């Protein structure tokens, strides 16, 4: 079955092409094509995952794409190992459910078929990233996702704000991508190959100097910063909520943003070999998770709460990877995909019903939309880390690894102890904040009385079905991390031995549960009766202002970078293009005209002038030939 793995990205790619060309004419707008492609991929992915669980070996196939010679090839191949299998299942499952959901959510949209085409292309891109055996191919899929993200966020581009959000997302991730590309080339040059296996081997055997490894790893991580929304490139994620909700569920919850985490995991031996980069990851992750959680606390738009929550949870995954928790990070990716996608889709159903994104116009929906409420609750509690739901297990594993690295002195991680301690502390604080904003979100949306217009009603079956499926996943996915044959063993490779959950640290479990419950309790107490007159944090103006202006980061970027580029660099480049570049082109033409204007006097039409030229030429030639040549 591993041999068929190439079909998994290939089918959505074909679906994209078909939908683009003939989609509009197909019955139902061609949605079935996209769904079918992903469904087949989903089946294959499950089969592969079961194979891995059953103990299958990693499968690697590769062919040379373009022979460059000089011992450097550009390979084109795929690696189907445990890590890839897990991600395959995650991506295809979420993609399939999102597409099913979109059939109903996007009904009546003007660009319905194009939407499904974009979803298919995006899925193909992510799957290419997952399966790629070399960094160049991964970069290809990476960029495809970036472009699709732009298109999908800007789906409702008639509103200029949406178009701007799409551009912001694209450009911000692009900044990260520059570092990513530089990192790829550093490693490719050092290891003489783009293949991941070769690079990892090169690092392991010490063939690549440690400075190169550190430099390359830091650069690669830049790409992850951009794509996975870590500080300081996280500003695009909240704005990306301008896109349709299924997009947010697929891209900004489960897949694209996970690509950065996947990258670090894929290249983990390289990152492990350079401790300073891991430290850097840890610090950035800690900062990110904290500020994102704080910002989630003051949002009115329900999707923005979820967006900041995603940023925060991604930071958790990165933090896990930074303290040596390779399997913890992937485990959290796995569970997060389920409950975050669920939350977004449920939010979509709510938005559909209430015709507004703002929680200030919601409330009391528990009675009006029971199924949605139920599934949303499951997802929210999973997010807050309440046992026995999925989020609890993965979050707990992360905190355990951080504790071990920071305080218990397991010493096997390459990270420094102090960084691990910081990670642990911020992780705990963020867990509290997470529970807090989850409670706020739940009560404002579903509790007290309805504050909006109209009569909201339950979503239809096509939208509810994915919600229920994901709720089941969010509830049970955590158990994949338990036992001997767990996710830890599945994703083990020869360089990264199986790292199952550390022996359950009961003390830690108790502490985290208490923290989470406390957060929920406070949230309940504050927001049980719905939206207060003034938000609590508004009472501290400084804090409120900072949070409302998103820690002034957007302003900083706007003034500092955008202003400088658009204000100075762009006009300068424009001038250069118009005058220098065009000048050369126009100048070539003008120069020729001027030369011609001078030269045309040769064509005077007067025979005597021609004769004169002839005689002068003869004399000249005679002199030249006899004096200079003949001699």
């Amino acid at each position: 079955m591993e041999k068929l793995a190439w079909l998994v990205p290939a089918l959505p790619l074909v679906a994209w092409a078909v939908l683009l060309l003939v989609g509009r004419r197909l019955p139902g707008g061609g949605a079935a094509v996209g769904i079918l492609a992903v469904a087949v991929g989903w089946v294959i992915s499950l089969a592969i995952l079961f194979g891995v669980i059953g103990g299958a070996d990693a499968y690697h196939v590769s062919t040379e794409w373009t022979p460059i010679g000089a011992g450097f090839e550009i390979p084109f191949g795929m690696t189907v190992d445990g890590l890839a299998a897990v991600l395959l299942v995650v991506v295809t499952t979420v993609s399939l459910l999102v597409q099913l959901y979109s059939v109903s959510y996007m009904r009546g949209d003007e660009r319905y078929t194009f939407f499904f085409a974009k979803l298919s292309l995006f899925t193909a891109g992510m799957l290419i990233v997952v399966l790629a055996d070399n960094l160049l191919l991964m970069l290809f899929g990476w960029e495809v996702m970036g472009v699709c993200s732009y298109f999908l966020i800007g789906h409702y581009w008639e509103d200029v704000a949406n178009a701007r959000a799409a551009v912001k997302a694209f450009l911000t991730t692009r900044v990260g991508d520059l570092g990513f590309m530089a990192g790829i080339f550093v490693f490719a040059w050092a290891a003489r190959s783009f293949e991941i296996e070769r690079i990892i081997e090169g690092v392991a055997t010490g063939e690549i100097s440690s400075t190169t490894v550190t430099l390359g790893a830091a650069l690669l991580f830049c790409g992850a910063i951009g794509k996975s929304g870590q500080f300081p490139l996280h500003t695009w994620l909240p704005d990306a909520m301008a896109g349709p909700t299924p997009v947010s569920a697929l891209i900004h919850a489960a897949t694209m943003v996970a690509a950065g985490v996947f990258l670090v995991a894929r290249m983990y031996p390289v990152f492990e070999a350079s401790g300073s980069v891991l430290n850097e990851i840890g610090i950035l992750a800690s900062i990110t998770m904290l500020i994102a959680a704080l910002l989630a606390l003051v949002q009115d738009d329900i999707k923005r709460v979820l967006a900041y929550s995603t940023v925060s949870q991604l930071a958790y995954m990165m933090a896990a990877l930074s303290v040596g928790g390779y399997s913890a990070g992937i485990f959290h990716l796995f569970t997060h995909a389920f409950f975050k996608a669920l939350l977004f889709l449920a939010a979509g159903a709510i938005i559909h019903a209430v015709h507004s994104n703002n929680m200030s116009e919601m409330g009391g929906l528990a009675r009006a939309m029971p199924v949605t409420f139920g599934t949303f609750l499951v997802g929210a509690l999973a997010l807050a880390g309440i046992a026995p739901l999925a989020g609890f297990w993965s979050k707990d594993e992360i905190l355990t690894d951080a504790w071990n690295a920071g305080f218990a002195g397991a010493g096997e991680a390459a990270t420094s102890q102090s960084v691990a301690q910081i990670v642990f502390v911020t992780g705990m604080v963020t867990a509290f904040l997470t529970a807090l904003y989850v409670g706020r979100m739940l009560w404002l949306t579903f509790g007290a009385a309805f504050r909006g217009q109209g009569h909201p009603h339950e979503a239809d079956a096509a939208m509810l079905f994915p919600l229920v499926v994901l709720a089941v996943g969010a509830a049970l996915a955590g158990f994949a991390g338990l036992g001997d044959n767990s996710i830890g063993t599945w994703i083990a490779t020869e360089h990264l031995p199986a790292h199952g959950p550390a022996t359950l640290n009961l003390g830690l479990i108790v502490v985290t549960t208490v923290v989470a419950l406390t957060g929920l309790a406070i949230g309940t107490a504050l927001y049980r009766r719905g939206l207060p007159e003034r938000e609590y944090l508004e009472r501290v103006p400084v804090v409120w202002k900072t949070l409302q202006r998103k820690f002034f980061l957007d302003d900083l970027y706007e003034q500092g970078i955008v202003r400088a580029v658009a204000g100075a660099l762009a006009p300068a480049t424009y001038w250069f293009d118009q005058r220098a570049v065009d000048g050369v082109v126009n100048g070539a033409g003008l120069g020729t005209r001027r030369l011609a204007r001078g030269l045309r006097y040769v064509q005077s039409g007067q025979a005597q002038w021609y004769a004169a030229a002839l005689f002068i030429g003869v004399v000249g030639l005679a002199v030249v030939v006899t004096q200079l040549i003949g001699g």
Partner: protein
Amino acid sequence: MTGQEVAFLILALIGGLAGLLVVTSRNVVHAALYLVVALSSVAGVYLLLAAPFVAFVQVIIYVGAIVVLILFGIMLTRAPVGRRVLDNTLRARVGAFVVGAGMFVMLTVFLAGAFGGERIANQAATATSALGESLFRNYVLPFEAVSVLLLAALIGAIVLARRD
């Protein structure tokens, strides 16, 4: 200085002067007559170079036919008189002089360099029969070609100058 050389020098002087006057005279008809002098002196030179037949042909064709043709041309085109009408601007003339002088210098220098010390041996005048033999045996093809050329020129001139 042999008599031959003296004769040659006299003829060369006359011919050179006449040639100079052809190109600088202010009157067209005078120029044509100076041309006659120049061509005749050239015929004399031919005689000195042991080519009597060529000298006769020169006189008959050039002086007899071509100059007459030129005089007819002058008459039919109502050639005017006067420097301003006949010559180009001063600038052009100076340029022409430079080119001409340059040509002369170049030719003289090279020829002197190549054939400086050679002499033409005394020889009997070329018998016309020898010329005829050579013409009709070895060079009969160019001969025929030239006759066709003359025919074409004849027809061409008639066609061009017709009044229709």
